[in-house]
């Protein structure tokens, strides 16, 4: 048994990723900057920053705060709009042998559908429907915390999308399995979780919140126990493939998520501390498989 003979392929919504490692939307741009640090061909997929139907300016600065073992962001989905994205980023990403997952944002069902429709003619592999961004008041998070709305938006986006649709869930709910089940009923092809927790930090010297937006999305190693618990719960409740994320920075972290039932894993905040984090995670998974003589991740997925 050697590293090359390991079977790392995973399938989500009919799309085969050569390995289970992708990135968390919003922590990797569209890959351009990271192409200077790592070989993008090594990734199972690149998940790009959320795009909306028209350009969004996002929230005022400061948008970043550090917390113990984690961070807050209130970027608010700043992006140049789906048309710019299609023009500039897809040709770049297509030069690499990796799948493209496009995270989409909207304030209304119509906006989500509009992005999905525009992407239907674009050369991408999967859509990740973000119904869980805590940083945009008008939308996103309301869909992610209400089972009926989550189902509705999933159904509509599915109708407008030629690509399989993964739905990204919010952790800021009483019962994540309820939302997961609703989204499955809506016709989702896969799930990804977790988006950021809602958090806050205060500058005690200035006596005001650090973030201009007061609260923000909490991510990083600190949140891993919540993410892992939710992936575990959702994997037990539904049978769709799951992209697990939340604090993953090592191969060991990734293996925990796979044991809990994740089909693939996404590296997020860890990219900021270590631009090679995705490669470290991929190698760590391979080493674990070698140590325990695991030929395919199917042998251990969800066995916990």
């Amino acid at each position, binding site marked *: 048994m050697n590293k090359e003979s390991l079977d790392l392929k995973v399938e989500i919504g009919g799309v085969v990723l050569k390995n289970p490692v992708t990135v968390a939307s919003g922590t990797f741009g569209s890959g351009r*900057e990271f192409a200077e640090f790592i070989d993008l061909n090594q990734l199972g997929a690149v998940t790009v920053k959320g795009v909306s139907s028209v350009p969004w300016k996002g929230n005022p600065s400061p948008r*970043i705060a550090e917390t113990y073992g984690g961070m807050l962001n209130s970027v608010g989905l700043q992006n140049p709009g789906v048309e710019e994205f299609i023009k500039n980023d897809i040709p770049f990403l297509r030069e690499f042998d990796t799948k493209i997952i496009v995270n989409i944002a909207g304030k209304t069902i119509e906006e989500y559908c509009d992005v999905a429709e525009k992407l239907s003619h674009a050369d991408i592999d999967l859509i990740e429907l973000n119904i869980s961004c805590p940083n945009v008041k008008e939308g996103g998070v309301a869909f992610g915390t209400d089972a009926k709305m989550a189902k509705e938006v999933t159904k509509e986006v599915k109708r407008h999308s030629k690509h399989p649709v993964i739905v990204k869930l919010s952790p800021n709910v009483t019962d994540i399995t309820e939302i997961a089940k609703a989204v499955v009923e809506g016709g989702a092809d896969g799930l990804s979780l977790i988006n950021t927790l809602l958090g806050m930090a205060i500058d005690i010297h200035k006596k005001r919140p650090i973030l201009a937006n007061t609260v923000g999305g909490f991510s990083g190693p600190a949140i891993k126990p919540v993410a892992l618990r939710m992936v575990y719960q959702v994997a037990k409740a539904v049978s769709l493939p799951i992209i697990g994320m939340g604090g993953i920075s090592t191969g060991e972290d990734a293996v925990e998520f796979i044991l809990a039932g994740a089909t693939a894993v996404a590296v997020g905040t860890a990219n900021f*501390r270590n631009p090679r984090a995705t490669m470290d995670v991929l190698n760590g998974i391979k080493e674990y498989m070698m140590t325990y003589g695991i030929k395919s991740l199917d042998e251990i997925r969800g066995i916990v």
Partner: protein
Amino acid sequence: MKEIKHVTVLENQMIAPYMYSMTLQADGIAELAKPGQFVNLYCKGEARLLPRPISICEINKEEGTINLIYAVAGKGTEEFSHIEEGETIEILGPLGNGFMIDESKRRNIVVGGGVGTPPLLELVKQLKGEVDVYLGFRSYPILVEEFERLGARVHIATEDGSVDFKGNVLELMKKENVKGDIIYSCGPKPMLRAISQWAASQNIPMQVSLEERMACGIGVCVGCVCKTRKKDEGDWQHRKVCKDGPVFWSDEVIWDE
């Protein structure tokens, strides 16, 4: 491929209360560095994940070294202040675009405030023509001799009047009736805003180096934005301080925040 480098700390000394000077053996970084660029320094403390952006103060391309001057502002910079010579630190850089030196300008005005002063030192080294350096501090001036050694005229304002002019740096500039063809500036936002307004009123073009809280420093997180409008743009944009900056033309910055 780019990478975070483990480099050796050659020197790390207190130069004023809460202010430290750190020299790094930064081969591969020094060679590329330009004045106004910065580096990401990473903490050892596991509670602190995000890089600390610090401007490059001096560059020695022959030796492959750079010098940084930093204030102890919180836990991360406090950690740095305890590093001993010979230890290593993780660093990524050079990052950002740096100052755009316009050699056609003869009379350069360079304005620094507090910990905004360090990146101006390498700038002044590389400027041609006359240089007037205006520096404002709360109480303890830094780098004055270093600027003088480069042949610049140095003018100092301190808020508490402990050294030279008592007041802020713009008041000093007005009092001395400064004249010039271009202003390069780095310091706290309120200072930059005030000087930028004055520069506009005097029709002097001005470059400002901005600061913002960062998560990546390499342009992916979109965390570090400032409001700007380029001359040909109808509407303002949120631009990244780490990648599109940290240096901007002051008339493109929207100062309303």
